[in-house]
């Protein structure tokens, strides 16, 4: 878990996952792609999804965008789910959100993108449908971030 800058930054984009577990790396891939665009006022980070680390990363942010891979059954690899945890009232991002809520450390707005995965086996690289979805998610986040800025 880490961020690529120490400035507080109003907006943080956090990619969750392990780039050595194929599609599990989709969140990291999206964060890396956006990071290369050097969007002003935006911090980028990767995380293993551990709750305390996530809270540390998004605390104080006006907008936090989290990207993660998702296993479902049956699955449509590359299908994108978007969930918003607005104003700390929605409750669907597991332990990290719940813990942050109790401690008053939720960002003002939290948006989650989850991409349905096909292959979470060992090795680098995304499967084609998930790689394509990564591009679409990155474009949508770039838009959101531009609006937020």
């Amino acid at each position, binding site marked *: *878990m*880490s*961020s*690529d*800058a120490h400035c507080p930054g109003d907006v943080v984009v956090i990619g*969750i*996952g*392990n*780039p*050595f*577990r194929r599609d*599990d790396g989709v969140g990291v891939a999206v*964060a*890396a792609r956006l*990071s290369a665009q050097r969007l002003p006022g935006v911090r*980028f*980070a*990767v995380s*293993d*999804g*551990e*709750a*305390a*680390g996530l*809270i*540390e990363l998004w605390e104080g942010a006006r907008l936090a965008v989290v990207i*993660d891979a*998702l*296993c*479902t*059954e049956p*699955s449509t690899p590359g299908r994108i*789910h978007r*969930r918003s945890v607005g104003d700390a009232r929605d409750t*669907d*991002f*597991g*332990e*990290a959100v*719940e*813990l942050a809520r*109790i*401690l008053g450390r939720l960002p003002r707005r939290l948006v*989650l993108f*989850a991409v*349905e995965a096909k292959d*979470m086996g*060992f*090795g680098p690289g995304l499967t084609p449908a998930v790689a394509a979805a990564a591009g679409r998610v990155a474009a949508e986040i770039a838009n959101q971030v531009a609006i937020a800025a």
Partner: protein
Amino acid sequence: MTFRSNRALKVPTPARVEGAGAISVRVDRGTVTDVKLEIYEPPRSFEAFLSGRAHTDPPDITASICGICPVAYQISACSAVEDACGVGVGEPTIDLRRLLSCGEWIASHALHIYLMHAPDFLGYDGVIGFARDHPDLVERGLSLKKVGNALVELISGPTMQPTKVHIGGFARAPSGTQLRALAGGSLRRALDDAVATAEWVAGFDFPTFVHGHELLALVHPGQYPIEAGVPHTSSGLAFPAAAFPEHLPEDPTTANVLLTGDRTYITGPAARYALNADRLSPLATEMAATAALPSTYRNPYRSIAIRAVEMVYAVEEALRLIEAYEPQVPSSIEVPPRAGTGTGVAEAPRGTLFQQYTLTPDGTIASARILPPTAQNQAGIEDDVHRLVQDRLDLEDRALAHECERAIRNYDPCISCAPHVLALKVVRS
């Protein structure tokens, strides 16, 4: 490994399929005859992936094996490759690696103590209930973890950028001013928090349980072992790290790692403490006395108290190393490749980590062998669970699963299901 199972994503489609995370128990006529933990995946695929790559690659690649102890992987990988190439790094590099490891120990121990283990002793199902009733305590844990992470980032750099941990040293030495600012501020305050943690944990009510496993840890002259040392066991065996494949063979049928002679052993804080207590700092020793550790380290439930003592030590050691720190120029030395086999070790927060690489003359990795602490603890954990289940067969499955999870958490395994999600399968006949 990620903390996959720690997160429950609710989406309109069916719930996510979780990864490994099951305990299988077989009971024949009231006797537990078999216990299998499917909690951990050995890094065989990483070993295969490393073959054919350059000798400079292991620190970066092995850091992805465990999300909570990447530093221990990086440092033991560096030591192994340097050993293979016949290069010894200087004391400043060794000290900086030790300082970096202290950061990881602080962060990892704080996470395990506060978010995972303490709720077990206080009657909570997990950290959420605990945080609701005691937000101040959870804040203290998060603040300790943050200091540890800050130390790691100052030295190895943020993960969105290439790590500064290299074979031969560091890509760039951290700034002394930044390290001293940390030492004078949040790291100094972390010492008080770590002491308060040790005092708090010492007062927990620990279940009575004594295991008979051997203990294995590194021993390092004059220092509590962190970034280097020689493997020792509680029965007096010592062997060069390079000989770990012979001394710690894998059982071909169960894949469990045992000491030669089929002896179960465990590694981790309890083993480190048992074999190195006299090398702790005076303050950490005092904390160990507060927790009455000397006579109880064979009770795995007490491991939380040893982690707290080690956290005090890691903060003190970090302060000491920062005080003496001078940035080195150059910050790393050349490590020209050559044919050979090299071994590296480190004490990860959860136990001894071994890595061994064989290189061809141009530095290509011909073979890699990685033995993480959880692979070594698996047999000991299964044995603890076996005994525990035998004594609690009257419990219904859910309560029994909770007791098993608790027994597993004692060892802080580097697995995705360390929290509260194990499936229990009991076959009773």
